[in-house]
């Protein structure tokens, strides 16, 4: 039953993709339907009218779009149901599908880990399919055909779901490639701009290099076992060296997809150019699938983890978290900023996962379960709020045609509902109490503080430093999202487009983000719901759970023991409401002192203009100066002068260009190396037929020598 609904989720998303293909086939459908109605029913009259109404020129595209997204939404619902069912029953379901290689049918396994990620995908897909019909409505069919978008969205979602079901390396890679390639077409969807094509190509290149590395990782495992099924891979026993090689290959492959520093560069290129609901899926959900791959590979297939791997993850995670948020801070394109912030969040998840590995390898499975809980919880939270923020960015772009935050402003009055939803997203991602982001960060801190149980002195001093880096990351994230919300929604409009914006009319476009925002708040108040589910995952995968916290009930969260640390969000909420209520009621009691509106104080000079407000680069200037060496900063000021002796300055031009260090340090050398290598190889291509015949002859001789 559970497996059936898991399959249903895959099939429905696949079907939604196929249905989208019918976009341009309405004439064929019309004839077919007339034929069928005539054949089957005698009283063809009103049925015909009913069908024609939907198939006629005007209604058909809207109807089909709606149908495609309904199918996608149903797929999401089934994914949520299947995920919840397997998590609650704690079952492991295996199956085989007679597809694939003759000697290797597709093995399917649906366990708690897959179920948890099914849940994440399901929620993301549900929100996107509520949002989608309104968002794609304004696309011009001629430039951006919906058939392409719908087909690849369906394939993309079904690819992600299949990755989670796969139980052999072959099937896993097929599903992985389906996911990667389908998402390539989605990134390249708005292909009329050359920058978008470049971004898509970069994405495809890195996805394929990553996939290659994953295949090699599976290859190392498979060479020590008898087969490609995950069961066989689990049974294999590797020496430490080979296990470490496999780990590094998997880390490179999955890390590339997840966007860990320094292999993150495709994220800030690819996410801004995809349609917003696709970037929401890619950032909120696809990165989690990569995380799933890493967890499956390390904790499940490799079996025994080594603490050195944990240290690698911890260091990489810390670098990604800090680097991601610092780069995000400097961006002016909203979606690019959100992409960099994904790098940060993935970094946090990797950090905690690394802690979990360290505790696991040192023989503290309960603490490992705590770290694992924090990692998966943060993955879940990130899926919620990043999806929310990307959908919000989509609404902003849809209404103002602007993504540059220096060109927005004042939207809180023009788009009150959107601004409230976006505020919830910003508060969650800045990990403020009462919202979900805070709970997972709190758990991460609690994990890091358990360091006293370790014997290794280096680890004991390294982990608190990474905890402080986590604190810095959280504080910088708050600064970054104050900037985002403050510049986009507050103040005065900085451009005509944002001055004329109005609230989005489509209810679905608000319902999708509202669902996510509601979940962010609900889980922030009652984190126990998700924690119990993740506990089931870790009991199945790690063989350990948190110490029993059921004595404290749903009100309290006490991951280690009630004595050591506890947090009760409902009580905090009640306290906050009481405190705010009392002072609000007390202070507003006098009707004589109602508020008066007056002009903004302009220091007596008059004429405040929107251009006097702080801009993005002004807001981040102190941080840019403090952390100057993190970026490559190119800052230039020109003055236009006129008059005698060039005394009068007529205009001042300010240019700021900020680049990622990884391009000149890592990628350009690699690109140069590949170029010069291919030039060397090119030397043998003389263009002369006699030389080529000589090559053939030499090869033939060589082969004869080999087989003889």
């Amino acid at each position, binding site marked *: 039953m559970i497996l059936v609904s898991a399959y249903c989720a895959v099939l429905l998303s696949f079907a939604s993709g196929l249905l989208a293909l019918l976009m341009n086939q309405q004439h064929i459908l019309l004839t077919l339907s007339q034929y069928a109605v005539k054949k089957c029913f005698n009283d063809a009259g009103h049925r015909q009218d009913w069908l024609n109404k939907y198939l006629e020129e005007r209604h058909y595209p809207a109807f089909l779009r709606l149908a495609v997204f309904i199918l996608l939404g149903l797929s999401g619902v089934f994914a949520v149901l299947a995920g919840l069912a397997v998590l609650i029953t704690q079952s492991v379901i295996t199956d085989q599908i007679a597809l694939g290689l003759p000697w290797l049918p597709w093995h399917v396994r649906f366990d708690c880990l897959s179920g948890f990620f099914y849940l994440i995908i399901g929620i993301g897909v549900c929100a996107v399919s509520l949002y989608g019909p309104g968002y794609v409505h304004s696309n011009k069919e001629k430039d951006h055909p919906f058939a392409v978008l719908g087909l690849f969205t369906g394939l993309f979602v079904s690819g992600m779901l299949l990755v989670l079901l796969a139980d052999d390396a072959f099937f896993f890679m097929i599903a992985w490639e389906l996911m990667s390639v389908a998402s390539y077409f989605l990134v390249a969807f708005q292909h009329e701009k050359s920058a978008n094509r470049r971004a898509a190509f970069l994405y495809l290149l890195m996805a394929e290099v990553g996939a290659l590395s994953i295949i090699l990782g599976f290859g190392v495992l498979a060479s020590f076992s008898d087969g490609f099924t995950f069961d066989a891979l689990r049974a294999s026993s590797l020496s430490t060296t080979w296990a470490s090689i496999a780990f590094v290959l998997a880390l490179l492959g999955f890390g590339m997809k997840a966007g860990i520093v320094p292999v993150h560069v495709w994220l800030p290129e690819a996410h801004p150019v995809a349609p917003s609901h696709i970037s929401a899926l890619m950032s909120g959900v696809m990165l989690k699938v990569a995380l799933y791959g890493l967890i499956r590979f390390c904790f499940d297939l490799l079996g025994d983890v080594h603490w050195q791997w944990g240290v690698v993850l911890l260091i990489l995670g810390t670098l990604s978290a800090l680097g991601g948020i610092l780069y995000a801070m400097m961006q002016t394109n909203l979606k690019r900023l959100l992409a960099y912030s994904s790098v940060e969040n993935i970094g946090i998840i990797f950090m905690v996962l690394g802690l979990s590995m360290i505790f696991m390898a040192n023989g503290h499975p309960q603490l490992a379960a705590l770290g694992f809980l924090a990692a998966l919880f943060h993955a879940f939270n990130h899926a919620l709020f990043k999806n929310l923020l990307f959908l919000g960015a989509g609404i902003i772009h849809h209404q103002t045609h602007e993504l540059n935050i220096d060109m927005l*402003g004042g939207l*809180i*009055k023009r788009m009150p509902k959107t601004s409230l939803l976006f505020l919830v997203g910003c*508060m969650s991602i*800045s*990990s403020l*109490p009462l919202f979900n982001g*805070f709970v997972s960060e*709190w758990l991460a801190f*609690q994990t890091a*503080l358990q360091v*006293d149980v370790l014997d290794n*002195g280096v680890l*004991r*001093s390294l982990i*608190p430093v990474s905890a*402080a*880096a986590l*604190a*810095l990351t959280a*504080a910088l994230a*708050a*600064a970054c999202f*104050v900037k985002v919300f*403050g510049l986009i929604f*507050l*103040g005065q409009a900085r451009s005509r487009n944002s001055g004329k914006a109005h609230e989005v009319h489509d209810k679905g476009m608000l319902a999708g983000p509202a669902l996510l925002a509601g979940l962010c708040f609900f889980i922030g108040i009652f984190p126990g719901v998700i924690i119990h589910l993740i506990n089931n995952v870790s009991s199945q995968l790690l063989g350990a759970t948190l110490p029993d916290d059921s004595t404290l009930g749903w009100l*309290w969260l006490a991951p280690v023991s*009630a*004595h*050591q*640390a*506890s947090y*009760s969000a409902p*009580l*905090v909420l009640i*306290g*906050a409401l009481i*405190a*705010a209520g009392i*002072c*609000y009621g007390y*202070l507003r009691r*006098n009707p004589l*002192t*109602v*508020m*008066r*509106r*007056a*002009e*903004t*104080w302009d220091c007596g000079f008059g004429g405040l203009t*929107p251009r*006097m*407000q*702080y801009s993005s680069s002004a807001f*981040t*200037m*102190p941080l840019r100066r403090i952390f100057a060496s993190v970026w490559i900063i190119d800052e230039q000021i020109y003055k236009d002068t006129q008059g005698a002796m060039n005394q009068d300055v007529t205009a001042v031009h300010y240019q700021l260009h900020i680049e990622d260090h990884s391009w000149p340090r890592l990628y350009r050398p690699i690109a140069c190396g590949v170029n010069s290598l291919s030039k060397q190889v090119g030397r043998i291509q003389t263009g002369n037929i006699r030389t080529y015949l000589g090559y053939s002859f030499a090869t033939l001789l060589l082969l004869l020598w080999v087989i003889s």
Partner: protein
Amino acid sequence: MNWLIAILQTLLFVALAPLLAGWLKWCKCYLQNRKAPSLFQPYRDLLKLTHKQPVVAEQASWLFVTAPYIIFSATILAASVIPLIAVDLPTSASADVIVMVGFFAFARFFLALAGLDIGTAFGGMGSSREMTISSLAEPAMLMAVFTLTMTASTTNLSGAIAHVLNSGLVLRPSFVFALFALILVAVAETGRVPVDNPSTHLELTMIHEAMILEYSGRHLALIEWASQLKLMIYGVLIANIFFPWGIAETFTAQALGYGLLAIMGKLGLLAIFLSIAETLVAKMRLFRVQEYLGFAYLLGLLGMLSHIILEASR
């Protein structure tokens, strides 16, 4: 009973905060050869502000008007977590020290947004600087606090203070480092000299005042009160974590009375030190603050390392 005491203690916290500000001002005036206002002047100011009609800029949205209430209640929640006159409070189980830092972050988030809401250069400047300084101060603060929590192996503030109290007078090098780190952070976070000057309105130096420039009436009263409360919170943290003696461990009238006297004495002494420091030290340039906070972070780190190397039980 426990809950009642916890709530009473929080009320006491809120009520005493302006008194501490008044005492601080009194000490500073005395040191600078000025005539001091009454100790109760901050109460009169707050009362006066609550009776005035607030004037709100036309540009302001709902966020600007709600922010003072959010800031004030978040600060009260932070205060409710901290043992003032007695340990073993139920409120400090519902939120530990990391959550307390979270409450500060919450208040700051809305204060910075309110600064940006009006759309003037002053507000943006204040928000930008506040977020910069706090993002550097937060890791230093957590580093200092983690030293304490790892020593006591609990992040519950009541539990940690009880642990320090029960282990007697032990000289811990880590605590010395953590104390200095926390003092430096406290000065930065509460906007005192040398990081910010609460009594100036000069655009080159303003941080906190720049954000709240547009506030008036009851909104201003709430924000002022919240910042007085924040000063007191940091004072109580320093006093009760590192010198917890005198705090009530049982809920008898006598013990609570002694606790109240003890904390008032400790805070009075701290305020004298702070006013001496503020009189002697000049305000520093904005771009020196990172070195100052970097030093605080370094002290916190040293405290943590000396805990791990010298004091941990294995």
